[in-house]
């Protein structure tokens, strides 16, 4: 396994172990993970369900503790922090995008974003201005007063992205951000994340087994059984399948549909050539 050069690394994970217990039965989730992510990278954690992607993201995001190892994020060893320190660390360094959006349901889209700004000590007016700015960045400015249950899945995820970026975090951790979205909406979201990565230089670490997400990655890290099993490599930034049309919202509807169908046909033909997909692949 290649030991990462930590000079420009914003995330460094060394020999990380984490085990869940169900009664007296141990379920190892992370078995000595080592990895490093550079500043401004758009990295993707890939792997099957149960491979440890979400656990690794949670530990890096200071949402969960670990049994052993070292996690240095933005120069701070987060495993040595107490609860309050971890909360403040999350607030000032990390933005989260979750699989099930996880917006606060009693607050409007605008209030969801303004809330994190207020947690950082901004006053109401400033927070609302920032919320409005980020809502327009994710093309949701016209829906800011809607509550999450009045938004579609894709719209909710855009608000979640805006919330994650509103506090100007060093890193955005996204756990299966496209899992609850249809293909087209998922592609649009990835397109948006890439744009934000390019524009603001924020580091993105995304866990997913969605091929579109993998294609968008500047670095792919594959996990299996709680370990990094594939040498990471800088893969040339492959535009997402619809990157020509990015942002897709700018295309006429007929063209968007044509691209969508073309992509779908491509995928079908690949599947046909391979034959029936094994259940566990």
């Amino acid at each position, binding site marked *: 396994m290649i030991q990462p050069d930590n000079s420009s690394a914003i995330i460094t994970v060394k020999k990380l172990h984490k085990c869940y217990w169900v009664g007296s039965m141990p379920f190892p989730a992370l078995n000595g993970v080592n990895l490093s992510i550079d500043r401004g990278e758009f990295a993707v954690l890939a792997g099957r369900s149960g491979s440890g992607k979400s656990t690794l993201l*949670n530990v890096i*995001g200071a*949402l*969960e503790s670990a049994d052993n190892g070292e996690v240095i994020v933005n120069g701070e060893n987060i495993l040595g922090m107490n*609860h*309050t320190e971890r*909360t*403040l660390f*999350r*607030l*000032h360094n990390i933005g*989260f995008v*979750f699989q*099930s959006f*996880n*917006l*606060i*349901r*009693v607050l409007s889209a605008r209030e969801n974003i303004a*809330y*994190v700004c207020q*947690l*950082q000590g901004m006053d109401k007016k400033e927070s609302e201005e920032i919320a409005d700015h980020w809502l327009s960045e994710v093309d949701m400015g016209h829906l800011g007063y809607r509550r999450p249950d009045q938004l579609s899945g894709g719209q909710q995820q855009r608000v979640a992205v805006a*919330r994650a970026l509103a*506090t100007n975090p060093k890193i955005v951790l996204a756990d299966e951000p496209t899992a609850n979205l249809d293909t087209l909406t998922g592609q649009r979201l990835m397109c948006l994340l890439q744009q934000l990565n390019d524009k603001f230089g924020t580091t993105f670490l995304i866990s997913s087994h969605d091929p579109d997400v993998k294609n968008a990655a500047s670095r792919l890290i594959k996990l299996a059984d709680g370990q990094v099993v594939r040498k990471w490599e800088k893969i040339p930034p492959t535009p997402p399948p619809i990157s020509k049309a990015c942002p897709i919202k700018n295309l006429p509807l007929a063209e968007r549909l044509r691209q969508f169908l073309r992509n779908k046909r491509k995928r079908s033909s690949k599947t046909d050539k391979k034959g029936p997909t094994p259940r566990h692949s």
Partner: protein
Amino acid sequence: MYRYMPAGSSLHRTSNDHIKAPGEIILLLQDSPEIQGWTQRIRTSGLVSLGGSSAGVQIMATDPEQETWVTHMHRGLKQGRWLNPGTSHDLLLGITVAQNIGAEIGDRIVLMAQRPNGEMVSEIFFLRGILETGAPQIDRTLALIPLNAAQAWFEMGESVTDIVIRASSHENTAGLQQRFNQELSGDGYEILAWQDLDPMVRQWLEFSDAYGLIIILVVVALVLTEILNTMLIALHERQKELGIMIAIGTRKSQIFFMLLIEAVMLILLGGALGYGVGGLLVLHLSDGGIDLSYFANAFKFFYMDPVILPLLTLDSATRILGTTLVAALLAGLYPAWRATKIEISQSLRTF
């Protein structure tokens, strides 16, 4: 009749002698903010007769107008009208006395009694009204006549046997008793508060206070349980929301105080609603009161007016609201503490 004057005192001679110059005492009562009203009375035992029927009664002569400031007896009129002032020979009987002798409104009724000099005299009165006070002991013995008529009948001049005072508040009773004891000491007057006149009423009120306290404690316990239950259910339902809040940077202390504030808000909103509805009910019932005459038998040993007049005071409202706010804070402590123990990663997986 003392059941009607829980906030007053009775002033009368220790001997059988009557108060010969009540005007001197009345002067002391006027313009005193601690006194709501006063009346002069003559009380004596007597006999009431109609045709062949007769019954022993307590004859009470009073100033018809002044009496309404001291007691609510006039509200107990079952039939007929209240006494006319002056020397009219109006008579009101307790409902049981009237039934026992078969008297009806307008009947000529003979009253027999003893003058202060010991002479037995009788006089004809006209039954103008029948009273049902709710206290069977009084309804069984009461014969009420105008003070001036009694003074003329007993040849007492302006003398009376009692001066009854109603204080403007319970709290003033002891002070008034002390004041009159000082001002009238050496004149042979005995100043009795209602507690002295009828210790049983005092005991009953103490019992009533204790019972009321128990009820309030039960209500507070119910409020506590309800708040705790509501907060715990809300906590369960909002586990994900709280988990998100903690995940994106809300400190546990902020979550703790947020839930405490929510418990207080719950009480403030409930209190505002309760006081609003309760205040309107009190306003509506303040004239007629809550009539519990149907349960009159239950009250007969307690000398309690079956018509209860609800009263909402700022003092009691503030005290109850303060108590429930403290209770809400106490009840909110546990759910707030539980909220700080939420496992973020687990709560984010809940739906």
